[in-house]
Structure formats: structure tokens, C-alpha cells
């Protein structure tokens, strides 16, 4: 495992893993969407239940991506590892994307079912806070010129924000909310019938593989960006050296 924490080894691993992961994601998305299209209507919600196949996987991924970022933040703070820095930075925009899908599809599901686009209840507000945390982290990475300092600052903010994840998860149990309680991962098993549950699980798997693929690709980009920065610095210092040598050579020639 530690062997792949080396950036050069990681690039070789990413090159080998990205094509099969992308193919698997495509197959899972195609199967999941097809099963979601064929799934029966809910006896209360009718066809509107089809929004669940996007909303629920996006909500799970919003929290999963933050957990991945938190583990990477530990890698940055404890081991000061460059791949952990890259993993943190690469995950934030993806987390923001999945959280935005969760909020937007939730709002589009809420309007016909609850009669409102938005309520300031615990579940919705804590997910909005998660979205703002992602945006804050993306902004923080842009603030620092030194990426090592940016990684440490982002890691601290990520670990402070991790308290929001159990709040999101348990908000429907701790407070009275308009949002329904957990219906898949709960004591006593899922409350969703099998014909509706299977497309949901396959879509969740498809979203997870989509994240893994995009995350690997984005980490690879971050490693290449660092490489490019290093090369630019080397080229700039070589040019400076050459400039300094030309006048001294001219002085020697005159003397």
C-alpha cells in the first residue's frame, strides 16, 4: 500500500486502474438507469419516486467523499504525504458536485411531495452546511501559493468539519424534521420493497465507482500539476543562472 503512496508509482497504478474503473462505472450507470426506468411507481408518490435513484446515492456520496477527505487530511497532518495532499484537494470539487446534486434533486422531490422547495430543518440545513464546507475548502486551496501550507490548512478545516457528518446522519432521529428517517441502512432491514431497492443499490454502486474513477483521475492531475510547477521553477532558476553567467563571462573577456 505504502509503495503506491509514491507519486510516480501512483501514476502507474492510476494508468492501470482508470480504464477498467471507467468501463465498470459506465456499465453500472447504464444498468442502474435502465432498472430505475423500469421500476414500479410508489403507491403514494407515484413516478416521483424515480428522483430517489439520484437523490439518495448523491447524498451517500456527499458524506462518503467527506470521509475520504478526512482520512486524506490525517495523511497530510500525520505523515505529511504529497499523495494525501493531492487526494484531499482532488476530492473537494467532486464532493461539492455530489452535494449539489443531492440538494437540487431533494428540492425537486420536496416540492411535489412536501409542497415546498426548501425548509430550514436539521437534515436539509446540515447538508447545506456540508456544501458550504466543500466550497470553503475549494476556496482555501486557491488562497495559498505554497501548496504544502494550503494542504495543512485544508486538513485542519476538514477535520473540524467532520463533526457535521454524524449530525447529517442522525439529524432525522435527533430532531423533528420533514425529511424521512433512514429507510435502507437501519436496524430491522430496509423498509423499501425489493423492486424499488435493487435499482437504488445499483445506482449507489454506480455513483461510488464514478467517484473512485474521477478521484483517481483528479489525483493524477494534481501530481502532474506539482510536477509542472517543479519543472517551471527549475527552468526559471536555470534561466536566472544563465543570465548571471553571461555578464561575468563578458567581464572576463574584457579583462
Amino acid at each position: 500500500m505504502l509503495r503506491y503512496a509514491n507519486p510516480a508509482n501512483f501514476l502507474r497504478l492510476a494508468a492501470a486502474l482508470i480504464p477498467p474503473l471507467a468501463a465498470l462505472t459506465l456499465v453500472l450507470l447504464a444498468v442502474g438507469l435502465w432498472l430505475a426506468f423500469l421500476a414500479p411507481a410508489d403507491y403514494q408518490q407515484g413516478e416521483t419516486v424515480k428522483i430517489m435513484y439520484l437523490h439518495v446515492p448523491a447524498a451517500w456520496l456527499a458524506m462518503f467523499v467527506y470521509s475520504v477527505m478526512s482520512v486524506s487530511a490525517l495523511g497530510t497532518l500525520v505523515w505529511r504525504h504529497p499523495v494525501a495532499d493531492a487526494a484531499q484537494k482532488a476530492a473537494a470539487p467532486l464532493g461539492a458536485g455530489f452535494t449539489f446534486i443531492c440538494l437540487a434533486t431533494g428540492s425537486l422531490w420536496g416540492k411535489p411531495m412536501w409542497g415546498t422547495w426548501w425548509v430550514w430543518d436539521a437534515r436539509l440545513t446540515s447538508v447545506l452546511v456540508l456544501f458550504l464546507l466543500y466550497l470553503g475548502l475549494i476556496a482555501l486551496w486557491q488562497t495559498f501559493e505554497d501548496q504544502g501550507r494550503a494542504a495543512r490548512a485544508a486538513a485542519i478545516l476538514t477535520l473540524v468539519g467532520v463533526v457535521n457528518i454524524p449530525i447529517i446522519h442522525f439529524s432525522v432521529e435527533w430532531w423533528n424534521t420533514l425529511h424521512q428517517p433512514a429507510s435502507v441502512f437501519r436496524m430491522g432491514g430496509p423498509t423499501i420493497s425489493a423492486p424499488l431497492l435493487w435499482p437504488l443499490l445499483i445506482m449507489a454502486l454506480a455513483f461510488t465507482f464514478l467517484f473512485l474513477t474521477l478521484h483517481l483521475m483528479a489525483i493524477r492531475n494534481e501530481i502532474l500539476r506539482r510536477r509542472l510547477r517543479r519543472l517551471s521553477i527549475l527552468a526559471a532558476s536555470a534561466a536566472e543562472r544563465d543570465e548571471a553567467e553571461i555578464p561575468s563571462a563578458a567581464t572576463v573577456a574584457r579583462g
Partner: protein
Amino acid sequence: MEHDPHSGFILAAYAIAAVVIVSMIVAIVSDYWSLKRSLKRFGASGTREADRG
């Protein structure tokens, strides 16, 4: 689904999700190609020199 009174909400949800996912993919892939182009300008020897991270 075309007879469902809320089909507009369903289509909007799928359209938004598709736009966000495609945007994430395009952003990452175009970033990769632009980085590869920039690295190519420095040549293979420079790339080896920067292999340390």
C-alpha cells in the same frame, strides 16, 4: 411516466444530475490534457527530473 403530473420535476432532476456529472468529467479530462500539453513542452528529461513529486 408521461401521464404523471410531476414528470417535469423528474426530468429536471435527471437533467441537473447529468449536467453536473458531465461538467465534472469534462473539467477533469480537459485539465489532464492541458497539463500533459504543458509538460510536453519541458521534454522527457525534465519530466524524469521532477519524478520525485
